[in-house]
């Protein structure tokens, strides 16, 4: 350990070196004196001949050091001392940086949880991809049980494939029922994801066959195990009642695993073959290729890239489209990485999160510019220090390193606080996701990826903030600086120009964020104003699950009729109805392949038409105008002979498919039967408020029954919606406590989900943009205040020479105005370019909306003037006598 010895013996080595140099100088002086030179001259000459003693000793010592590291630690110690010496400066810089880094880390932790690490707990999750079927018009669909099995059996580029379907289960006895979200999965689900059981086992080989209803076993999640079984191993083998059937718990999933939908958590996994048991005995969906209810996840074979596998999947889907032409004609299929998959929250969050991340990036740049500005101001007052160090022989690179070390310290401290903020805010991803219908979202963990991101951010910030001040350090001429003892901290024109540029950049960046926020605010405002085509006010809604109660068609029908009658008797209630889908809510993408009499679809036309199952009276309750024909009635069922299946279609349906002749009486084929169109209703907004009209149809609840969809009951009231909500829950429970009631809310709240993304974008971006503007103005204020302080002398002279307050004001404020206007122009141009990327996310607003730009300009100028006003006011109060003495 030679180097270790060296470190410990270094003090002696250094001592030797200084002794030696001293002796050298003495000897020289002695010799010169002996040659007849006066002593003090001899001393000077000896030093001149020798060179810079300090620098040479340091170079000599450096031989024994690891200069890079040791000088870094010296810089670090010195930097810490500097920061402690200026607590106000340090606090402001660190807090600003913490804010900038904290917001970035928080948003990144959301992105990490939703997009980068969509399948926590899985082994090599990057090898797992989503297999999606594609309708003829390219719309992404799920897969059916049979299609999924074929994909699994025939694809060579895929190592293994599993299917999963999310479902709300009713767990518990007949009287105490809890709603638990789970997944129906194929037996190899955990193998494909590469998950090992925490306790017990996963599905055995025997439990993986296709035999329907043969394996009543479930795996539970770790949180469920903890909350319901106190993490007791006796849970394994215990019975659990799900949708009124008895299952046996065979295993517990590991703690970090929460299912196959990114960002969502599930607590129960049951074999897909048990669908009949949890779905009122009906499991024909497993035998129907058209019932595309499963998400498919595939693990790529070793060494296979997704592009290669995609080719095979497409080719195989085309073969299926021919072989199973009756169900799969025109269908294709493809693979997506999980973050691009369409079934899960990642799709709806991809856009908002990208926008948020970009805005946070802009914010961080402003923060960096602000801190750089502070550093430049301080660098001016530190010029003496730097000059002295340079005079003592420090190379400029050493000064640059010193400044960078100090910004690194600031950035690290900022990142530390920022990380704390992110941890504190990690629960906040819930804000981004509408609460209805979706299983609760996992709390995004602050994992290694997030930590690395924060560290990288801190380094980047250190360089960004430090670079300009660092390069400024030691630029000044040493002699000039040392001579210039009179003025306290003058700053060169160069530094002033740099600071001005930084302020312009800050204002420009703030303008970009303001324009973005403005566009989203206006978009949200307009979207909220769009009439959905039905009246969502004064309506209470609640969802009931028939499958959980094991109801068949008759039971569901009788329950629904009786509940409607009970509710109609409630005081204030004006109308009651039910359907299987709430427009503008989440989910409900049920569709049917239709054939319209007299209409020949185009080659790639998508005839999978969305539909809702409704009860008589639904349209009048929703206030959707019936344009022609009649509403459904209670005789539209399967018992009145002759059975005549009927449907009601919307305007767009008529426009697209029934261009000639009367719509009423037209025959339409679906579900293996011919339906007669009996009515036409006005279009409403079904999925998004800004959607173009889509063809849509309705079928009566007594003819088409889907127990897995349950039913949503609506109560329109003249009184308080809250009262109606209470009545809804009470009456449903009174009729049959075994029927779980959930998502009781007002219709307005439940359709708010469709605007949720807009609302979040508008509110979060407003906050961030406000912060950006504030920071930019603090920067502006700093520069203005500093410039007034610098010019006190000049102002004093001007006042003495007879300048009026207005003149002074003009001199001072014009600088601020120029910075602001330059920033505004640059920012607006950049915003024009940048906001084009978000145009698809805006509702009825052009990215170049003049009102938004005008508002941003006004706000920016107003705030900027406020930031200039204080320094300007100070300038006005300058007393010429004081100012002239101000040296």
């Amino acid at each position: 350990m030679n180097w270790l010895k060296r470190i410990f013996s270094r003090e002696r080595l250094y001592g030797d070196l200084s002794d030696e140099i001293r002796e050298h100088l003495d000897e020289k002086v002695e010799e010169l004196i002996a040659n007849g030179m006066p002593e003090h001259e001899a001393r000077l000459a000896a030093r001149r001949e020798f060179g810079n003693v300090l620098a040479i000793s340091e170079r000599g010592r450096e031989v024994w050091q690891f200069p890079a590291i040791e000088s870094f630690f010296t810089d670090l110690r010195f930097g810490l001392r500097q920061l402690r010496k200026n607590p106000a400066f340090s606090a402001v810089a660190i807090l600003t940086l913490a804010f900038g880094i904290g917001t970035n880390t928080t948003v990144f932790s959301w992105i990490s949880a939703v997009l980068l690490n969509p399948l926590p707990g899985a082994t090599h999750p990057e090898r797992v991809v989503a297999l999606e079927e594609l309708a003829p018009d390219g719309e992404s669909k799920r897969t059916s049980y049979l299609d999924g099995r074929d994909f699994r059996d025939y694809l060579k580029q895929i190592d293994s494939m599993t299917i999963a379907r999310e479902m709300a289960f009713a767990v518990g006895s007949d009287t105490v029922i809890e709603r638990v979200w789970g997944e129906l999965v194929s037996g190899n689900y955990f193998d494909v994801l590469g998950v090992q059981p925490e306790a017990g086992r996963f599905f055995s080989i025997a439990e993986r066959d296709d035999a329907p209803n043969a394996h009543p076993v479930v795996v539970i999640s770790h949180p469920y195990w903890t909350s319901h079984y106190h993490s007791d191993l006796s849970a394994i083998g215990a019975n659990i009642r799900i949708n009124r059937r008895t299952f046996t718990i065979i295993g517990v999933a590991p703690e970090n695993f929460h299912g196959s939908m990114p960002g969502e958590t599930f607590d129960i996994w049951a074999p897909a073959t048990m669908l009949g048991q949890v779905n009122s005995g009906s499991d024909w969906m497993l035998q129907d290729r058209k019932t595309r209810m499963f998400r498919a996840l595939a693990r790529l074979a070793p060494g296979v890239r997704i592009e290669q596998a995609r080719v095979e999947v497409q080719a195989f889907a085309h073969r299926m489209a021919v072989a199973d032409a009756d169900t799969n004609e025109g269908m294709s299929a493809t693979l997506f990485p999980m973050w691009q998959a369409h079934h899960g929250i990642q799709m709806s969050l991809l856009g908002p999160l990208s926008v948020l991340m970009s805005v946070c990036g802009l914010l961080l740049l402003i923060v960096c510019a602000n801190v750089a500005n502070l550093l430049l101001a301080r660098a001016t007052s530190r010029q003496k220090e730097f000059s002295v160090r340079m005079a003592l022989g420090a190379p400029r690179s050493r000064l640059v390193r010193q400044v960078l070390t100090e910004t690194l310290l600031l950035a690290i401290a900022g990142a530390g606080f920022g990380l704390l903020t992110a941890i504190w805010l990690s629960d906040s991803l819930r804000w981004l996701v509408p609460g209805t219908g979706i299983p609760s979202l996992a709390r995004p963990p602050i994992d290694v990826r997030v930590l690395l991101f924060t560290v990288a951010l801190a380094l980047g910030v250190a360089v960004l903030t430090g670079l300009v001040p660092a390069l400024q350090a030691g630029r000044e001429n040493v002699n000039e600086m040392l001579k210039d003892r009179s003025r306290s901290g003058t700053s060169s024109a160069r530094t002033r120009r740099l600071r001005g540029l930084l302020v312009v950049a800050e204002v420009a960046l703030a303008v970009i964020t303001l324009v973005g926020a403005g566009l989203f605010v206006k978009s949200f405002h307009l979207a909220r104003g769009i009439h959905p085509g039905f009246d969502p006010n004064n309506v209470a809604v609640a969802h009931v699950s028939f499958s959980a109660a094991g109801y068949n068609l008759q039971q569901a029908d009788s329950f629904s009729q009786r509940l409607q009658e009970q509710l109609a008797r409630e005081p204030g209630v004006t109308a009651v109805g039910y359907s299987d889908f709430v427009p503008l809510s989440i989910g409900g993408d049920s569709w049917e392949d239709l054939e319209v009499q007299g209409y020949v679809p185009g080659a790639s036309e998508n005839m999978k038409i969305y539909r809702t199952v409704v009860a008589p009276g639904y349209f009048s309750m929703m206030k959707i105008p019936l344009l022609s024909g009649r509403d459904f009635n209670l005789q539209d069922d399967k018992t009145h002979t002759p059975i005549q299946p009927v449907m009601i279609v919307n305007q767009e349906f008529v426009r697209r498919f029934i261009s000639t002749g009367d719509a009423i009486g037209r025959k339409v084929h679906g579900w293996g039967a011919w339906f007669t169109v009996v009515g036409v209703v006005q279009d409403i907004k079904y999925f998004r408020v800004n959607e173009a009209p889509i063809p849509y149809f309705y079928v009566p609840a007594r003819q088409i029954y889907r127990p897995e969809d349950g039913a949503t009951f609506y109560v329109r009231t003249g009184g308080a919606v809250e009262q109606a909500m209470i009545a809804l829950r009470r009456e449903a429970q009174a009729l049959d406590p075994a029927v779980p009631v959930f998502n009781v809310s007002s219709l307005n709240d439940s359709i708010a989900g469709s605007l949720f993304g807009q609302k979040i974008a508008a509110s979060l971006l407003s906050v961030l943009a406000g912060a950006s503007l504030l920071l930019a103005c603090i920067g502006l204020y700093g520069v203005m205040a500093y410039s007034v302080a610098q010019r006190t002398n000049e102002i004093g002279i001007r006042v003495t020479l007879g300048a009026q307050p207005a003149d002074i004001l003009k001199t001072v404020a014009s600088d601020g105005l120029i910075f602001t206007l330059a920033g505004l122009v640059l920012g607006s141009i950049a915003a024009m370019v940048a906001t084009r990327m978000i145009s698809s996310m805006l509702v009825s607003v052009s990215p170049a909306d003049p009102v938004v730009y005008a508002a941003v300009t006004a706000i920016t100028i107003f705030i900027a003037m406020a930031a200039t006003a204080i320094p300007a006011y100070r300038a006005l109060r300058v007393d010429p006598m004081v100012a002239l003495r101000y040296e």
Partner: protein
Amino acid sequence: MKKSEQRDLFPGALEMMILRTVKRQPLHGYALVQHIKRASNDLLQIEEGSLYPALQRLLKDGLLKAEWGVSATNRRVRTYKITAAGEKHLEREVTSFEKMLDGISRVLVPVKS
């Protein structure tokens, strides 16, 4: 500052001269620098101090060793001696220097017309 640019003709030159000088006779720093200046006929402008970092490097690499003692003029001095490794190093350096010098002079020979 110009002086210091002239000082090192090429990296390692100063070290080579130190080793060569000390090989002949152990010397202390001051005597060493005076000797080099004198021997070079004062053609080489050496900042006296620049000797010391070079000495430290040679010490660290084990090419020299140093000992405190008392000089003839009754002055406390640190005398440097060359080590075996130092002699070997010097030999190698001188050979390669001569080769380089040879190469350079061949190029610099005036073109025969």
